[in-house]
Structures are given as structure tokens and as C-alpha cells.
């Protein structure tokens, strides 16, 4: 913006924005700090901010006691599997809608979006029953399939908006040069689409990682991911602040870092192109 701004005004903005920003971030910061305290220090009165004996003990205890690795593996497999499967199914669909649009393309896109609006609780029992019948209740396979299906509309939409930005002249030039459909997709389109595909993978991995309706309702001991692991701390006997904090920090840290890279894609992915 070309408007001149006084240094004073800029300093005021900076102070205010940092204050609010830190305030919003504080619960996360507090959790991270608490994870390095002993249980006694975690509930000290008055609360301790930085002046305490930093310890890694909680992390060791959480890993040891609760099979943390198992939950983590489940989260990675479920979020990663559902995202990759969704991408494989969505790429051809988004490609065809972006480059060979028909009169019905818009209707199909909107209809896909409408399946995303279906409230999960409305179909909870049928899915629960189908899972039992198919023997996939409390399995990672089952969750991969369900999370893939609930995120598929978002994946198709995001890829569609990215693909549409690729100039079709380039594809036509390739066709003129005698490229087959296969080589057109493989050698012309894919390299240009990789940034968009990567962004889509990132955002959907995050959404799947944090999903907490199906993961809580369709898992028990075997396939439970981190969302369910953390929920198990809500029972009274699990009330150890430092350990809860360590477990929480481990569950959110990787996704927080990924999330910071995906800020821009978030808008595109969650508003379905309605805000640019």
C-alpha cells in the first residue's frame, strides 16, 4: 500500500497486534511450557512461567506408559493413507472437470460439495453397522476409507481450482505436437500441477489428522489415533497436567508446523473458491 504511515502509528499497531497474537497463542504456549514441568510445578500457586526446573521426564513417561508410538503410527497411517487415496481418486476427476468441462461439471462439483455438508451424526449408526458387518470396526483400513470419503469433496475442489489456473494453451500445444492423453497428463500437466497437489495433500493431511468424530466413534483399542489417545485423558484418573501437556504437545507439534506452511491453502481449500 502506498499510503504513508507514521512510525508512531506503526509502533502502536505492532504492539497491539503482538499483544493479541500472543494472547491467542497463549494456551498453546502454556501447554508447551507445562510439558517441561514436574507435576508439582504444573499446579504451583502462583503459577510458574519460566523459572522452573525444566525436565523431559513427562515425555519419557508418556511414551513409556501409553504406547504413544502406537497412537502416533495410527494417526500417520490414517491421515496419510486417506489423503493419498483421496488424491489418487481426485486427480483424474479434477483433471477432467478442469480441462474437459461439460454442461454438468458445475452441478457435479456442487453436488460433491453437498455430500460434505451431510452431518456425520445423521449417518452414524449405518456406518457403525456397516463397519461391524464388514469387520472393519476399530481398524485403520476402515478409518482410511471414511476419512478419505469425507475429505474427497475438498480434495476434488482444491485440485480443480488449481488445475483451472493452468493455461489450456499449453495442453493444446502438447496435443498438436502429438502427445497422447497419457503423456499429456504425465509430462505436461503433472509437473505444472505439483505445487497445487502438494498444497492439497498438506491441508487434507491436517484435516484428517485432527478429525475427531469418526476417529472417536469408530475406534477402540487397536486403531485409535492421537485424537482418541488425548480424549482418554479426560477421565479423572488421567488428570496429570504435565503429562497431559506433554502428550498434547506431541500430538499437535507436527501439525502446527505443517499448518504454518498451509495458511494460504486454507482459504482456498475451505471456502471452495468463494473467497479469493
Amino acid at each position, binding site marked *: *500500500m*502506498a*499510503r504513508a*504511515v507514521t512510525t508512531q502509528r*506503526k509502533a502502536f*499497531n*505492532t504492539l497491539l*497486534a503482538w499483544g493479541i497474537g500472543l494472547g*491467542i*497463542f497463549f*494456551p*498453546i504456549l*502454556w*501447554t508447551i511450557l507445562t510439558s517441561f514441568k514436574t507435576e508439582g510445578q504444573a499446579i504451583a500457586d*502462583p503459577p510458574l512461567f519460566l523459572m522452573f526446573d525444566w525436565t523431559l521426564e513427562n515425555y519419557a513417561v508418556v511414551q513409556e506408559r501409553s504406547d504413544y508410538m502406537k497412537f502416533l503410527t495410527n494417526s500417520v497411517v490414517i491421515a496419510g493413507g486417506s489423503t493419498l487415496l483421496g488424491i489418487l*481418486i481426485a486427480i*483424474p*476427476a479434477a483433471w*477432467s472437470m478442469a*480441462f*474437459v468441462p*461439460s454442461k454438468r461439471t458445475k452441478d*457435479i462439483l*456442487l453436488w*460433491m460439495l453437498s*455430500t460434505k455438508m*451431510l*452431518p456425520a*451424526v*445423521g*449417518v*452414524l*449408526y*449405518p456406518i*457403525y*453397522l456397516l463397519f461391524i458387518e464388514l469387520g472393519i470396526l476399530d481398524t485403520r483400513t476402515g478409518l482410511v476409507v471414511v476419512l478419505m*470419503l469425507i475429505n474427497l469433496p475438498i480434495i476434488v475442489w482444491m485440485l480443480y481450482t488449481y488445475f483451472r489456473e493452468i493455461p489450456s494453451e499449453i495442453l493444446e500445444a502438447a496435443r498438436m505436437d502429438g502427445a497422447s*492423453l497419457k503423456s499429456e497428463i504425465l509430462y505436461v500437466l503433472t509437473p505444472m500441477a505439483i505445487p497445487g497437489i502438494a498444497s492439497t495433500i498438506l491441508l487434507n493431511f491436517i484435516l484428517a489428522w*485432527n478429525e*475427531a468424530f469418526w476417529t*472417536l466413534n469408530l475406534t477402540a483399542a487397536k486403531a485409535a489415533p*492421537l*485424537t482418541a489417545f*488425548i*480424549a482418554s485423558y*479426560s477421565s479423572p484418573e488421567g488428570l496429570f*497436567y504435565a503429562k*497431559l*501437556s506433554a502428550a*498434547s504437545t506431541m*500430538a*499437535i507439534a507436527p*501439525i502446527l508446523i505443517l499448518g504454518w506452511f498451509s*495458511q494460504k491453502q486454507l*482459504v482456498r481449500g475451505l*471456502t*471452495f*473458491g*468463494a473467497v*479469493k
Partner: protein
Amino acid sequence: MATQHSRSAARFMMAPAVVLLLGWMLVPLTMTLYFSFKKYLPLRGGDLGWVGFDNYVRFVSSSSFWPSVQTTLVIVGGVLAITLVLGTLLALLLDQPMWGQGIVRILVIAPFFVMPTVSALIWKNMFMDPNYGLFSYLWEFFGAEPIQWMSQASLTSIVIIVSWQWLPFATLILLTAIQSLDSEQLEASEMDGATTIKRFWHIILPHLSRAMTVVLLIQTIFLLSIFAEIFVTTGGAFGSKTLTYLIFQRVLESQNVGLGSAGGVYAIILANIVAIFLMRIVGKNLDK
């Protein structure tokens, strides 16, 4: 132009996604409809035959129904009001020139990436616990009696937690919209001597109205189905039972599938009413 060949190829490539989503939509939906007309108690006799619209009537006339509708409205309405107002103010602030803007953005956006079970537990235990929570220290510091957040102020607690999670989303989208505003128009109005407030009312707010509508609709759809935040905080006690949670309890906790399914159909209809408005906006944008 697309050839006949590429057209049929296109249809073929779209098929897996379309078929899967069609199945995902139709199969469970049909089953929910089917169950909703049955007396079906898996643990107490199973399928006890057709009952017509009995479940629909009973779901609505049960004593928990209206309170749950009220709770849902309070939570959805409260979170929407907070996130839209604060989100707009925050987006306006973040659009101003400042040092370290990128870092502030990162701090503000962070809560959105925290999984719902984690944010609910952090708030419940480390902030709102009446004995050891930070809020209780704060209240005591000012000489006030600590609040029993989960039992005395369960709805307020949930609204605070969920607003914290969704404020980043509203802020980010409104910020994106503000940044797309034509700066020449703003400069011109400034030269004409328009005050900051006038500029906000006559230029910025109208420009934001579409983005606000989108935030409102998308959030409503997600907020209508919040689950984990209630599951790990109050478990639906202390008047915090939303429509979604009531259906969950009917279906999985009391295993009254027929009754729960009828509730599910109501939830689907409700979500669809909101969705229609959202689709209209999105659809308009597709034509461009």
C-alpha cells in the same frame, strides 16, 4: 476443443470419485431413513417392526429435545457472533502496516491446527479447572470466587473453547478478503476526507459482506456438528447437550437406533437448509 475421445475419457476419469461419493451419500442415508421408521433396539430385542412416524414424533416430544435445540442455537449463535466480530476487527488490524506481521499471523492462525480433543482438554483442565486452572488463580488474585466453569457455566465454557478454535478461520478469510480490496478506492476516499469509521461502513464492510456470509455459512455447518469439544468436557451434562450430541447418545449410548435415526434425519434437513444458501454463493462464483 475437446474431442469426442477426450470427452468419454473424461467421463471415465470422473467415475471413481462420483461413484464413491454417491455410495457414501446414498447407502447410509437410505439406512438412516429405513431405521427411522422402525422400532429398532439392537441390545433389547433388535428389529421390533415398523412404527411409521412414531420415532419422529417421539424425538421431538421428548423432554431433552427443546433444551438441545436451545443449546445448539446458543453455541452456534455465540461462536458465530464472537468469531465474526472479533475476526473482522483482527483482520482490519492485521492489514495495517506493522513489524513482524508474518509472525503475528502465525500466532493467530495456530489454534485452528490444534486437534479438537486437545484444545478442549487444555481449556478444561489448565484454564477452567476450579482448583488448579489458571483462571481460578486469576479470579483469586482479584479476590473473586473461582467459577466452576464446566458445571456452572458449561455453555459459556464451550462457546469460549470453540470460538478460540474458529477465530483464526474467520480472521484469515476476512483478511484475505480485505487484502483484495482495491487500495485506490480507499485512497480516493481518504483524499475526499472520509473518516476511518465512514470508510469502514461504506467501503470496507460492503466489500467484506460476501466473505462474511461465506464464513457464516461454512462455520454454521461445522458448528452444528461439533462433537469432541462436548465429549471431552461435559459429556453432555449441565445443559450442554446439543442436537448432535443428543442423537449420538440415542444411537450409541442408549442404543435406540430408530429414535436416533429420526433425529439424524432432522439434523440432515437442518444442515441442508444452511447448505443451500452456501451452494448458491459458491455456484455463482463458478460461473466467472
